[in-house]
């Protein structure tokens, strides 16, 4: 319908610049958050069942007579798995999934920044996953009587925020890499679950893997983030920690800047390559 046929409608103000960027971020975050309200099945499958899965590791420790603080380590690690799974499946492989379902072409055609789309995905994912992780942490702590001794709340908040920023920066970076891949993306995301649970020390202090393995695993922000959080939450955490908290905070800050900058650069590069090689619309099924 052209403008002449609807003379009483006011013209729609067009956003541009940072306003368009922000609107795109909110628009992409919106379905993630609202999806939680529409599809309540996640409460059962993602929270209740996750608590049971975390509990299994708690009972392993009890079966072999581990000290009680290991139960707390498992509960905190189990809550953080929600973020890792969200980054893997809803960030890294999301552009691949969007390509397969036909949305990617629409994102590229629309006059918005792809970086804003990725940021929106990350923001929506963080909000949605924080609810799940919080529920796992709360229920797990109540069931297993986990006692926390918070040494420094500002430090704990800083570690948590930096960990998530670096983690979702990694997710945004890998999303652009996955843009070039076909079904490999799906399988590589699947492959990055258990090995990362192992290397990042989700269920035990990463220090036990040895210095150099822990150094290598530190490229995944959750490795140092979890280690620092455990040090700040449990009295014995410092003794079992890999590096001191200030050092871990520093490395996390560097990772955060590095991943976000790399995400921006890679996204532009990969988009150009994908356009040149005609991969944006291909569907190698």
């Amino acid at each position, binding site marked *: 319908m052209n403008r002449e046929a609807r003379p009483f409608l006011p013209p729609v103000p067009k956003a541009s610049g940072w306003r368009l960027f922000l609107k795109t971020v909110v628009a992409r975050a919106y*379905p993630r958050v609202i*999806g939680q309200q529409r599809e309540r*099945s996640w409460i059962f499958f993602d929270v209740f069942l996750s608590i*049971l*899965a975390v509990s299994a590791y708690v009972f392993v*420790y*009890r079966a072999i007579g581990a000290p009680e603080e290991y139960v707390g380590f498992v509960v905190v690690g189990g809550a953080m798995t929600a973020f890792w799974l969200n980054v893997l499946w809803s960030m890294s492989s999301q552009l691949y999934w*969007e390509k397969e379902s036909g949305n990617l072409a629409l994102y590229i055609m629309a006059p918005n920044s792809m970086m804003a789309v990725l940021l929106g995905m990350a923001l929506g994912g963080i909000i949605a996953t924080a609810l799940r992780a919080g529920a796992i942490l709360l229920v797990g702590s109540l069931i297993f009587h986990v006692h926390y001794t918070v040494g420094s709340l500002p430090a704990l908040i800083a570690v948590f925020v930096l960990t998530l920023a670096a983690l979702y920066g990694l997710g945004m970076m890998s999303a652009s890499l996955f843009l070039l891949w076909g079904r490999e993306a799906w399988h590589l995301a699947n492959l990055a679950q*258990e090995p990362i649970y192992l290397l990042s020390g*989700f269920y035990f202090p990463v220090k036990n893997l040895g210095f150099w393995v822990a150094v290598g695993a530190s490229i995944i922000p959750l490795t140092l983030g979890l280690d620092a959080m455990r040090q700040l939450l449990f009295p014995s955490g410092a003794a079992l920690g890999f590096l001191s908290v200030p050092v871990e905070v520093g490395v996390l800050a560097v990772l955060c800047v590095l991943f976000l900058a790399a995400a921006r650069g890679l996204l532009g590069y990969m988009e150009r390559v994908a356009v040149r090689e005609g991969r944006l619309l291909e569907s190698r099924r």
Partner: protein
Amino acid sequence: MSRNVYSSASFRERWAAAWRSFRVATWLGWQIESNWTDPFLFAVYSMVKPLASAAILVVMYGVITNGQFQHPIFPYIYLGNAFYIYVGAVMTGVSWAVIDDREHYRTLKYIYVAPIRIPAYWLGRGVARFLTGSFAVLITLAAGVLFLHVPFHPARVNWPLFLLSLTLGVVMLALMGLVLASISLMIAHHFFLIGEAVAGALYLLSGAIFPLEVLPPWLRPLGFAMPITYWLELIRRSLLGDVARGFPTLSGFTNGQLLGILAGLSVLFGLMAAVAFRLCDRQAREKGLIDQTTNY
């Protein structure tokens, strides 16, 4: 619709259609699972995931016990974890086919109008993951025997009991997967795999990695209601013999009794799968969910 095509068919025709659906779905599932890369990368992919999963438990055990891998509880944990790979693989393989066809390939509506038996098709789609899962179980067992002193002696294995238990167990898992597949018809595409989520939860209740006595008394009945509990006990007894009998959970049961319980619970899950499919299939048709896409 497939339901109407076979409403007046004879039993033989229904069986032939189910077998054809199963066979074609098996081929299709294998292509989807395996032809995305070269055989070498596929082999590495199939090895790394299960070995990492086993290594988590090995590190946890090693840290707490200072590496006492000779203790009888270690093979109990290790074997339970190794064979538990089948639980996630088979249940995910069968149930993920619904989401994959509906939202990724967008072919579920075409499958529904084709002359095939839907449950047989889903079971066939699970075979590929069963095969890759078998490879993962073998690799995990080999690593345990070679590097962690898991006491496995082929001459002492009760092979008939092992093969019978394994077959019965895989059928039982496929039926559980069918229940999940029916439920998947009704729910959105979440970022997690429903089969793996359920398998992760049953990890707690099935005595896979610790004896059920470790659970609080109010949770134990749930463990005893799970067919996986009896299946894993049979697998352990057939492979380890007396070592497995050292744990009190099911020591009062003979092998025959355990097989009987496993068979009975498998029949129960078969009935549940049939009922779940009828209910969910009808609801999904009435609510127009067969071709829904949820891309949050």
